[in-house]
């Protein structure tokens, strides 16, 4: 079984990179360092059959993935670790079991439902709270400002990532032996100091694993994000400041969904497969790192908290 999975995974990597190879070859490093993906895709779609593979630039998509996933992982970590500490340390054993069950349920909600709620609730809210007509006119030359933007993607993604962070952190916190907490109390430490200096450091490997797996889910998440992101790979600019949050975005994963209608053209397919190739590598990196971290590192290697 394990052998079969390894073969299947290897074949997926080979297939994706084989399909992506022409575009990667034609674009070179420009693939990661230049923008203009949206226009390149429509040009490639209407290009006459048999034309040579054009160059693509995915900088906007990479920035979209980095920003949407990075910010939402940050938010989800703060929310998730905070929630895990609250639930494990202040709700009693029964309360903790109940809340963790609810959180696991949250993790099982299909992502399209998150997307739908994002579209119905988050997008109009963001539009009403942050976007004025004056702003839309001011930024008309650069991008179209609607409720579908980076901010909405971050909000939706944060709620999708948080359950992973909560559930792994809570496992790790619950696995910290009571004798370690009592050591802290015996030194005259208060409850909050014990949490901060003893419980969290002991649970750190599990907490970091939760954050990394959450980040992995964030990078790979496609459908929900594609519903609220705006669908245009705007490259963020320092000049826009916080307005970058209100610009439409297009992470790599959402790009695959968004542009999949143009897959009829072999060149577009190649471009989307190169998005997939990058996502595969990122996902593998996140989950491998999470694995290494949760096993614990350094001498001793018991890793303190998590036992998995």
């Amino acid at each position, binding site marked *: 079984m394990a052998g079969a999975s390894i073969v299947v995974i290897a074949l997926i990597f080979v297939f994706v990179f084989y399909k992506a190879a022409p575009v990667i070859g034609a674009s070179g490093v420009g693939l990661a360092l230049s923008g203009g993906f949206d226009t390149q895709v429509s040009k490639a779609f209407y290009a006459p059959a048999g034309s040579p593979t054009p160059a693509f630039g995915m900088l906007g998509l990479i920035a979209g993935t980095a920003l949407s996933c990075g910010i939402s992982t940050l938010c989800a970590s703060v929310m998730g670790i905070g929630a895990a500490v609250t639930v494990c340390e202040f709700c009693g054993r029964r309360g903790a079991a109940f809340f963790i069950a609810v959180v696991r349920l949250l993790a099982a909600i299909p992502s399209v439902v998150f997307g739908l709620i994002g579209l119905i609730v988050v997008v109009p809210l963001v539009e009403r709270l942050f976007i004025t007509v004056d702003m839309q006119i001011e930024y008309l030359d650069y991008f179209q400002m609607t409720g579908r933007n980076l901010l909405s993607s971050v909000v939706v993604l944060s709620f999708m990532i948080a359950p992973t962070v909560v559930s792994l952190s809570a496992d790790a916190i619950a696995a910290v032996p009571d004798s370690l907490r009592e*050591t802290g109390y*015996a030194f005259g430490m208060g409850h909050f100091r014990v949490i901060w200096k003893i419980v969290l450091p002991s649970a750190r490997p599990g907490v970091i694993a939760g954050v990394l797996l959450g980040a992995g889910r964030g990078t790979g998440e496609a459908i929900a994000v594609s519903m609220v992101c705006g669908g245009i790979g705007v490259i963020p600019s320092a000049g826009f400041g916080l307005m970058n949050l209100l610009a439409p975005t297009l992470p790599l994963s959402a790009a695959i969904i968004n542009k999949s209608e143009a897959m009829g053209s072999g060149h577009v397919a190649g471009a989307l497969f190169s998005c997939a190739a990058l996502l595969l590598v990122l996902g593998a990196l996140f989950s491998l790192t999470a694995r290494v971290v949760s096993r614990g590192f*350094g001498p001793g290697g018991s890793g303190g908290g998590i036992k998995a």
Partner: protein
Amino acid sequence: MDSEAGRAAVSVRGFSAYYGGKEALRDVSLDVPENCVYALIGPSGCGKTTLLRSINRLNDFVPSFSREGEIYVGGTEVFSLSDRRGTERLRRGIGMVFQQPNPLPISVRGNMALPLAEHFRVPRAEMDARIVDRMKQGAIYDELKDKLRSSALALSGGQQQRLCIARALMLDPPLMLFDEPCSALDPIATYAIEDLLSSLKRDRTIVIVTHNMEQARRVADYTAFFYLGKLVEHGPTERIFSQPGSRLLSDYITGRV
């Protein structure tokens, strides 16, 4: 015993303890004189650990725990401390060593620095000097002087336990509680800790819970024998073991209970 009460490090007066409706200790009274090793012995479930953990009020964290009677530490009745700060200050003056060695998953130095850094701002040089000194007192410095930066989890069980003792010494507690400190250790590590106990009692009082009667005999000046929540007999270790005053104790010593 009354003559000693004035200079007793710990005085227990009419102390009963309950977990929910279940009685764990009944009407226990004893005095622990200063600068000695006082052993609490008895079969499992006899209440000796409950008494130990009541002294620094660590049993407060057991939700079903309740008690009657008083325990005095250095003249203060510990259950009269009603606020959080009072109990935290009490615990700061009482070192505790647990059954399982429990170093934190950080460096040896980090473990040593924690109790002191938690309560006082200490300049680095002073902290380092104190860590070296307490590690020497804990008979662990020679083994670990080159490993201060490495993880405390990489040490052997015996080293971890001595590190925990040295760590508890950082706050200079006049009273130390040991909860079966050697039950997870091999004989050589056990002897190292027993040696340590007799050197530590010069400057402080030690109360140790042990299920190992030979250990009580080797290290303790006084011994109290508990059975089913009652204090059956207490006194100088010498007398307790050579002339047990009750059938129960002599049966226990000879291994029949």
